């Protein structure tokens, strides 16, 4: 009796969901962030429902299996626009975005009410590196030490430590591809000295991202600049949402997301910008790291390049933009702070451009060379720049490194997913942009 009462109460909690992002899964993440009954958690241990949002490529199945088994009992899974594994029977699959929160809540409630069994473990529960000592005292073997207990080598750092003579054993580990502070799909092997990143090697590139369809249309025919610029501002606001969430400014991040959802030519950035400045986001958070030199900045392109002082912007070559007297604004330092200031300035600029362009009904003129929010797209679209992280991040503290990752938009651009969306969802995801042009 008491138990059922407890479970009834438990079913009324905000549903703790750990999102595993597949391709184009970030839309679901943003949608759920604003759903009042869903709580997105950063660790699989804190979740009741595992949400696989979007198609996860086969090379990330192994990590997915491990994440799946990290959820504590009782838990369940939900597959959103992705194919459930065949041996998981009766797992619900959801296609429509607006049905997703409801499905998650139902899953959690059924789980709590005992109408649904907890998902089974996929892997066998044994240590990845089973280990048993052989020596007299149970130690690894020869002499006092020996052996590699549980896959962790003993700290026998007898070579001269070049850092400070105190042997801080370096710690090597893999993180990703479902770590919440990384771009979706990215996996890296990292060596830490204390909490200083010693080496960083990106093992799996983040999934290519799909931009707003208007950018792909702009490659085919002239499009209204107002629509293009609103989409650009929205893209940047989505990135700002992620960064603010990481920085511990949860409420401001939701403001950014709401602004992105309801973006129209009458929107202004002033309120959000003031709020960020007042909170000390630019002064207190990790902002000094990730300085890009010009060559690296050029490789990434887009706002990151302009934050490093390069004034490359393909919009300058477009007659439509020239009519609007567009000129790129730049920063000089090229660090995380400069990138966020640049991003905020560009959002502001985009909103102004959109306003003017709507009034004057300006269209783009170039189709072969357009500036996407991710970077320039002339012959080739922006490509994956994640290997650049291997050069930029070593030497930074952990917090700074993650803030840098959040401030760099490294994923490649690919045109997919746009066609599978129903018009209904587009409106949900993109807010009021559909009716800018009457």
């Amino acid at each position: 009796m008491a138990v059922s009462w407890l479970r009834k109460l438990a079913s009324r909690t905000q549903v703790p969901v750990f999102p595993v992002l597949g391709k184009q899964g970030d839309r679901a993440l943003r949608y759920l962030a604003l759903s009042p009954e869903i709580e997105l958690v950063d660790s699989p241990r804190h979740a009741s429902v595992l949400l696989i949002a979007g198609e996860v490529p086969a090379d990330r199945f192994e990590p997915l299996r491990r994440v799946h088994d990290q959820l504590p009992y009782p838990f369940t899974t939900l597959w959103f626009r992705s194919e459930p594994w065949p041996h998981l029977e009766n797992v619900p699959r959801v296609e429509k975005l607006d049905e997703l929160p409801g499905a998650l809540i139902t899953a959690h409630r059924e789980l709590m009410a005992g109408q649904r069994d907890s998902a089974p473990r996929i892997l066998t529960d044994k240590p990845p590196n089973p280990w048993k000592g052989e020596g007299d005292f149970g130690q690894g073997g020869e002499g006092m030490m020996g052996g590699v207990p549980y896959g962790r080598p003993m700290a026998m750092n007898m070579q001269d430590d070049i850092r400070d003579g105190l042997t801080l054993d370096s710690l090597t580990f893999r993180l990703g591809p479902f770590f919440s502070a990384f771009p979706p799909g990215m996996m890296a092997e990292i060596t830490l000295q204390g909490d200083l990143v010693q080496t960083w090697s990106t093992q799996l590139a983040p999934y290519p991202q799909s931009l707003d369809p208007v950018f792909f249309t702009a490659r085919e025919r002239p499009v209204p600049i107002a629509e293009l610029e609103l989409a650009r501002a929205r893209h940047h606001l989505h990135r700002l949402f992620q960064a603010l969430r990481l920085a511990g400014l949860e409420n401001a991040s939701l403001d950014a997301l709401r602004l992105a959802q309801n973006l129209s030519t009458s929107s202004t950035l002033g309120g959000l910008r003031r709020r960020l400045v007042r909170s000390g986001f630019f002064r207190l958070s990790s902002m000094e790291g990730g300085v890009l030199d010009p060559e690296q900045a050029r490789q990434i392109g887009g706002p990151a390049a302009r934050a490093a002082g390069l004034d490359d912007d393909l919009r300058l070559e477009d007659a439509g933009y020239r009519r609007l007297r567009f000129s790129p604004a730049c920063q000089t330092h090229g660090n995380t702070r400069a990138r966020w200031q640049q991003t905020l300035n560009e959002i502001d600029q985009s909103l102004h451009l959109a306003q003017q362009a709507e009034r004057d009904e300006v269209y783009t003129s170039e189709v072969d060379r357009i500036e996407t929010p991710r970077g320039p797209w002339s012959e080739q679209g922006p490509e994956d720049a994640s290997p650049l992280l291997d050069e930029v991040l070593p030497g930074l503290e952990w917090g700074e490194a993650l803030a840098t990752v959040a401030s760099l938009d490294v994923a490649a651009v690919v045109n997919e997913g746009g066609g599978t969306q129903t018009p209904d969802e587009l409106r949900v995801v993109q807010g009021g942009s559909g009716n800018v042009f009457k």
Partner: protein
Amino acid sequence: MFLNELLLPVLMVTFMLTVGAYVVAVLDRLIAGAFGAPQAGSVWLAPMARGAWLMTQHANATEAPDWQAWRLAPALYLALAAIGLAVVPWSESLVATDLVTSVVLWGSVEALATVVIFLHGWSANALLPLIGGYRYVALGLSYILISMFVLIGVALPAESLQFTQVVASQEALWNVLRQPLGLPLFLIVGLGMTFWGPLNLADSADLAGGTASEISGPPRLVWDVARAAMLVAFSGVAASAFLGGWLGPWLPGPLWMAIKMLAVLLVLLLLGRLLPRIAPERCVTLMWVVLLPLSFLDLVWAGIGALL
């Protein structure tokens, strides 16, 4: 004797622990809601529903953890919060343990919190908790120093290390006015030792929950309750040390105390929602280069005040 000296204080502390943790959870939700976090259902029921869910969730295992330390750490942190609550006086006579060195005892609670948080991060035998634990140790030592100087400052005018005496010494003038540097410094210490909001470096989002990132179920419930209770204990200490504790006109003493504690709690929770997480490196510099000298200044100020 048994009833008066053991049972009543234990009941009192348990009551404060439960009610306090619940109040923190509700207040934090209300503040988040006021700043625009989406909310569903009753704010008053939400903490209990969450607690019930954590009770039904199983406690998980990691590979080769230090089981004893891992399971004990949340309970120990809760015990430290209970000790903190036990020394907070609600009126001249209504105090769970009126130890003559209760100010020093609170200092040792802060020091032992460092041990417990490190142990919590270390014992999980997992990467992100470990980094969180080390981060806290690196920062915790500086909070303790600042807190000690500030607390010696309030003990000086009272000529006692007892919180009841410290409150009584504020009859004429509250310490928040007598030593203007004290309360702001102490609030920073409070955010630090409960790793809340801008100083939440041990259980932070960039570590996916830090020392708590590998726990689930009942241990996580205990850890969350303990953190909230520690915040309450801290606000009780801050209210007694700087805001005159139970002193105040018209209303009965315990009520004044509750109002002042709520005020401190509200400030801490607001700061937690308004400020971003401080970069650890900047935080260490701030603590040692700016705040520690300021706490010296506070102590010198208090000393001169006591001499005059």
